[in-house]
């Protein structure tokens, strides 16, 4: 099957139905391995056992931003090529990305209280992630409340592309401004500043969360394709009843 064939919703459904059980199984296995490694990781010399929150917080932050990246690519597909599967991908990624951003904010807050002495501070990193979460809610509102789904999708795609400006702001906020949040310690020039005993469990957990994201995203895309079929069949049914 050529890659271009996947742009056909029926073929995409066939592939997703085949892939989903394997993706779900791989996600569960990688989570089991990652959690075992995370629970066995040593405490941090400064933060103690609270470093275990990092194994949730950092992958959730990455996926919150990755979700917006997926939506931005889908928004281009919607606005430039008007491809229905691109719109399906964007709409399906929004609640998942919002949920991961919510996890990032909550776990960060729970990590901040014992390490910084506060649940929240209006510094550039925390505020820009909160803005990302509010943008997610805005996109969801456009998708879920528009009377005409086509217009709602186009408006959501425009908001997604405008909101993409926030992603580099989140990434570089700790370099551009003085923040209570620590600077980059994994993806930085000069290599990671984290000890391998903590870094490896973190990377495995990040892999597990990424698999979870794509498992949920493909499943949500399947649901959205079915929902659109239901909608078109109901319109046909209404037209037949009128005739």
């Amino acid at each position, binding site marked *: 099957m050529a890659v271009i064939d996947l742009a056909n919703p029926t073929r995409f459904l066939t592939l997703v139905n085949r892939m989903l059980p394997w993706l779900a199984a791989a996600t569960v296995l990688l989570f089991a391995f990652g959690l075992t490694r995370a629970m066995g990781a040593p405490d941090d010399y400064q933060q*103690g056992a609270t470093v275990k929150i990092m194994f949730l917080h950092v992958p959730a932050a990455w996926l919150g931003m990755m979700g917006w990246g997926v939506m931005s690519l889908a928004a281009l597909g919607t606005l430039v090529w008007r491809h229905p599967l691109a719109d399906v991908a964007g709409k399906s990624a929004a609640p998942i990305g919002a949920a991961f951003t919510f*996890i990032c904010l909550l776990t960060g807050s729970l990590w901040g209280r014992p390490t910084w002495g506060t649940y929240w501070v209006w510094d550039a990193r925390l505020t820009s992630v909160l803005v990302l979460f509010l943008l997610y809610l805005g996109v969801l509102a456009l998708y879920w409340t528009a009377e005409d789904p086509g217009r709602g999708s186009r408006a959501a795609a425009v908001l997604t592309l405008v909101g993409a400006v926030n992603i580099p702001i989140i990434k570089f906020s700790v370099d551009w401004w003085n923040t209570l949040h620590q600077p980059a310690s994994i993806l930085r020039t000069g290599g990671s500043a984290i000890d391998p005993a903590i870094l490896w469990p973190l990377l495995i957990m990040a892999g597990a969360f990424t698999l979870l994201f794509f498992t949920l995203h493909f499943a949500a895309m399947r649901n959205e394709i079915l929902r659109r079929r239901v909608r078109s069949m109901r319109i046909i049914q209404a037209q037949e009843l009128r005739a």
Partner: protein
Amino acid sequence: MNLGPHADFIVAAYAVTVFVVAALVAWVVLDYSAQRRILGDLEERGVTRRSQRKDDR
């Protein structure tokens, strides 16, 4: 495993994450069965999509 003096914060962070992920999984699974049920109901009533009609010809 000793979670130290801030065990409550660690447990709360894991509990919140499990709850949100479980909610996402439940949303996807329940939505799938709901859409399948509605589609089955429409097909039983003889409603077909235009593309299906083309396939039948």
